[in-house]
């Protein structure tokens, strides 16, 4: 799809470029906030899997615009990220205890009020594997969250509503007062993408979350009693608990529809805009170059 046809098809893409956001996903967080007041009274925020940084941009604009000079936003990603005003960016592994220590240091030892993650792995097309990896990514974010979020704090993460999403709903239900599946209008109806909005963190009684170097998510949540599948001596297949989380569509109905086709005349001049930030080089860059040169048969 050419730049201008993507502009036409996707008003949020166009709007993101116009408003200086690095990705259209900024509007998803804005619409989630409209619905759930996620930024209310929030001073310390962790944005996980933050690159290219559009959620941090939203957090920075929204929180600092209401005159919160001592607010702290930390954006973490394995990928390098261009700097964002009022945001501390960390190029680090979210599963590593050092990363946790670093964030706590920035927060002056205080817990976070809000943790969010818009991370998604590369999809393979094997739906069950992709869903497993996405769940692992959420569990990695949740590990850090349980170590840093204040009781009563909120957690938001991207999910894909597939076959086993009800397992995750069930597990999150042990850790939060309310678990909601939210779909902002900026997220396409044709995509399985949604956001899990977890309100009111409730630390598990008798369980101290401890992030260890080279510990797996399985080990981390062992003993947390959130209903994850356990390894049985006889390898018997246990049914896991499943719960359906309530669904809430968010964003005003008068907001742009991400599935609709708009004609450019309806809102915009027809000049196409360059993206705010160019995409990073993919791992297969060399293969593409070789293909261009006719070296692949």
């Amino acid at each position, binding site marked *: 799809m050419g730049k201008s046809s993507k502009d*036409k098809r996707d008003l949020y893409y166009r709007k993101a470029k116009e408003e200086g956001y690095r990705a259209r996903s900024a509007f998803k967080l804005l619409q989630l906030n409209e619905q759930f007041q996620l930024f209310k009274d929030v001073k310390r925020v962790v944005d996980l899997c933050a690159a290219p940084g559009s959620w941090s941009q939203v957090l920075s604009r929204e929180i600092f615009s209401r005159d919160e000079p001592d607010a702290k936003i930390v954006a973490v990603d394995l990928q390098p990220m261009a700097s964002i005003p009022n945001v501390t960016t960390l190029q680090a592994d979210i599963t590593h205890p050092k990363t946790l220590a670093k964030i706590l240091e920035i927060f002056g030892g205080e817990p976070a009020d809000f943790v969010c993650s818009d991370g998604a792995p590369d999809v393979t097309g*094997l739906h069950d594997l992709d869903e*497993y990896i996405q769940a692992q990514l959420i569990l990695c974010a949740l590990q850090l969250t349980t170590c840093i979020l204040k009781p009563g704090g909120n957690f938001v993460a991207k999910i894909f509503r597939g*076959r086993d999403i009800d397992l995750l709903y069930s597990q999150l239900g042990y850790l939060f007062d309310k678990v909601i599946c939210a779909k902002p209008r900026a997220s396409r109806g044709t995509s399985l993408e949604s956001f899990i909005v977890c309100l009111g963190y409730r630390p598990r009684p008798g369980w101290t979350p401890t992030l260890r170097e080279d510990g*797996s998510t399985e080990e981390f949540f062992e003993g947390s009693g959130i209903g994850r599948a356990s390894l049985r001596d006889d*390898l018997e297949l246990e049914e896991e608990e499943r719960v359906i989380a309530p*669904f809430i569509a968010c964003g005003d109905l008068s907001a742009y529809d991400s599935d609709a*086709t708009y004609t450019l005349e309806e809102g915009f001049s027809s000049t196409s805009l360059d993206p705010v930030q160019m995409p990073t080089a993919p791992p297969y860059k060399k293969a593409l170059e070789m293909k261009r040169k006719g070296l692949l048969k």
Partner: protein
Amino acid sequence: MTEIKLLQSSGPILAVKFVDSLLLSGEGPHLVANDVSTTSRVFQKLAFKKNKIHGIAVSSKNVVGLWGGRSLAFESLAGLLDEKHAIEELAINDWIVHVGFSTDGEVAYVLTSHNLVLVINVTTHKILSSKSCGEKSLLYSGYVSVTGTEVTVAAGTVMSGIVIWNLATETIAHNLKGHEGSIFGVRISDDGKKLISCSDDRSIKLWDLETGKNIATGWGHGARIWHLQFFQKNTKILSTSEDCTVRVWDAESEDLANVEVFNAHQGKNAWCGDVNEEIGIIATGGSDGRLRIFDVQESKREGAVIKQWSPESVSDATETPFTNNEIFKEYVAVAGGVVCVTSEGSLFFLNKELQWKLLLKDPRFAGFSLVRSFEIENVVVVTSKDGTHLLIKLAEDGSVQEQKSFQTEGLKGKVTNVLVTTDIDTMMMVVESPVPSDPFVLYVFSSGLDVKSTLKLPKPDTRFVSSSLAYDVQNDWILISSRYTTLVMYELSSQTLLHTWKKFVPGDTVSSVRVSLSAKNKVVFSVVIRDGSYYYLEVTNEIGEIQSSILGENRIQKGFLEGMLESDNGDILLYGFRSSQFFVWNETQQYEVFTETCGGPHRQWLFKRLEGDSFMFMYTRASSINVRVTGKFPLHSRAINVGNNGREIRSISIQQKVRADRTNLMLTGSEDTCIRLSVVDDAKHIKNVWSERKHVSGIQKVKFIDSNLAISSAAREELFVWSIDDTYPKRPYISVLATLAPTSANPDLRIMDFDTVPVLEAEKTVGYLLATVYSDSAIRIWYFDLKSRSFKLLVEDRYSTCCLLDAALITREAALYLMTGATDGYISVWNITEILDSSLSVSGGKCLLQSLKTDASTKLPECLVKQQIHQSGIKSVDIRSTPEAVYIITGGDDNSLSLLRLFSRNPSSLEVLSLVANAASSTITSVEFIPDSLKVFATSVDQIIRIWDYSVDDQLTLEKKEYVTVADTGCSAVASIGDKPIGFVGGAGLSVYSLEI
């Protein structure tokens, strides 16, 4: 008792494994065994309740290990072969990446995605120990290698590294770095010395496990690589990829030379493969649900030939001096071999033992000559520019048995083409000159090579350059094709021109015409156009005049077509050139059966299908003659499963009419842009007949609108009306009856849904009212006229700015309504009776044609109903009209299901009878009323199908649910077949259920 019973399923195949000639494959949660030597299914067993089989390994004790997700099973082969034995599903608490067996087969090593190995007793299923190297990063791939007592783990991480560790000592031997992106595949050679790996960077790397050094890197795949494996004593590597190809690499060459490329699967992803060294074949599985077999020993098969001759070598072999510039010109097949003419008029014969022999040298044919053959009769005819013909009958040993010469007289121009009938035993030849007033001169020969009759056929009054000839014995019709997609047909006995088709379809040269079916006064010709399309043209002479219609049409994805064959089982084989390759494509089964890199189409070539599914292709390259004969294929078939669409199925429709042989026709539309026409038999086996490539974008919807008509819509504002001809027992045919032209210049506009109502005149259907809804919120209502095949726009309006998702036309006693559903969750209804009044009227629940207005279209009247039912998009709607009211069922993106009623009390109110908020844990993508019941069938992305009952107080209550293996579950169809409702569920695969209600 309501039951949902699985009848058939096809979908991605993620694992294959040979045990001798038994091929085990993981097809969803089922383990399937086929005997490849007989192509027969040995068993199909459910291995796991839900999880798909991702891997299969076999121990030295013939214990089969299966895994997928966190599910696991160990079953003896003998147990699996026992019909009554069920597979016991075991489970651990994490995703399983690989399972290896100890040398004695007693113990299994189960590698998890957190780089942990559980050592498990295969018989007792007890966990003996848990091993780790301390590095627990997430794995996409892994391999447990056992050589003697040494157990080595190769862990392919999401972070581009490969960790090699020793199980006994739990220590890391190497951390192999060099790839970029996630590691999708690793394998250790069976001697434990080498490792191969692949990653998101699309390369294959070979590593020395003793030193940890990268020995070689191979490139070639156009997308990600999923599976790798060593074979032929670690000298070869097999790879399967997202780009649908399967490749063989030379592990001993410096930069891993890519020695073979097989186009294995359709759409996306060749997931898995295995090698059977004994038979010399590779089996692969893909997203398309196919199980393909490839010959890796082709050159060693009985009858196989790969040979090349330069002019010098033929000169030496036949002791015939060649002149300096003498080159091979045309060659033709005869019963005993091939006859080749050179530029000096020498005729050589190449017999089946690959020996050359000079037949004769005739200076009359030096410079320009044409050579043709009557293969069945073993006769060759050579023609010079000035019309001298030499007929030669060859004896079995290739010697000249008889020859006769004659001259074409009376042509003003030189002879530029000679056409012969090739597939019948009548020896018939047409001679052509480029002068328009020169007739075609047609000769019929006796077996004694005498001219039995000479006929002069006047040329049609149009530009005509002949290219192919077909003769139908039964009707005595001869069809000659030309460039400019023009055809001419004659009746031979009367020498009259019956009909000319001028530029009958787009394109240029007709490369081949053949008689496909023949009856009295009726012939179906196959017509192949060089630019890649082909047609079935039905010609009749039943009412004293020639009438014709296109029964079937299609095009290939890429390349140029030279001809078409039909195999004994009715499969259509197309052949032609694609860039530098010659290919043979099984169009019915949708896979390639032969390819040869010959340099491209601009050369002399000869293609022939031999017995035993083998092929001969001969071509000239750099003035040498090359020949490849594939030899006898070792198995019965090149595909065990043919599978279905290559990408996610987005729409399914079942023909309501049951065919004479108790089968039904089914249409599916998929993301791969194909519309597939299939036959569903009694046992609900699905056999694909056509894969139509008319659309260029992903299909939104396909639906039968009548027993022989269907409509499909897609992005880029594509909408086609299809005609399905089911009169011939050989196969149904499908062709485009009409195309709705795009209304806007915006190429991104999608036609999201449509609905039709038949329009009657004198109790006969003369057309259809068609409502189309668009992604830019546009609504249009058309009248489609059957006779003129044209659309007239009656109503044009806009809903809002949001994307419309559903359209339905509802006919009541004396009124017609339009209903839409949209991404905003609203159902809207309009009464459109009034605005259509002068064009159409509604009476007795039927739509009747009045006089079509010629003026511009009108707008919709004010909305009767506009009511929010769902929070977000209404993904699916179904309507049931009863005399009292109209029932509507809707399924939403918000996981909810609602039952609505219209017109029961107040004509302008929509009653919400029942709303189930959490009817599924994910988007409900399809809802349908089950025929002859008060039940609803719902399909959702959580991979569960549900039957809801509303017989009590119109309240939806869940009656039955069943897990479906089809992921990305996106569409369904429920049809009464044999008095029973049958549910079809599509997505990444297709499953068929019997709904026992």
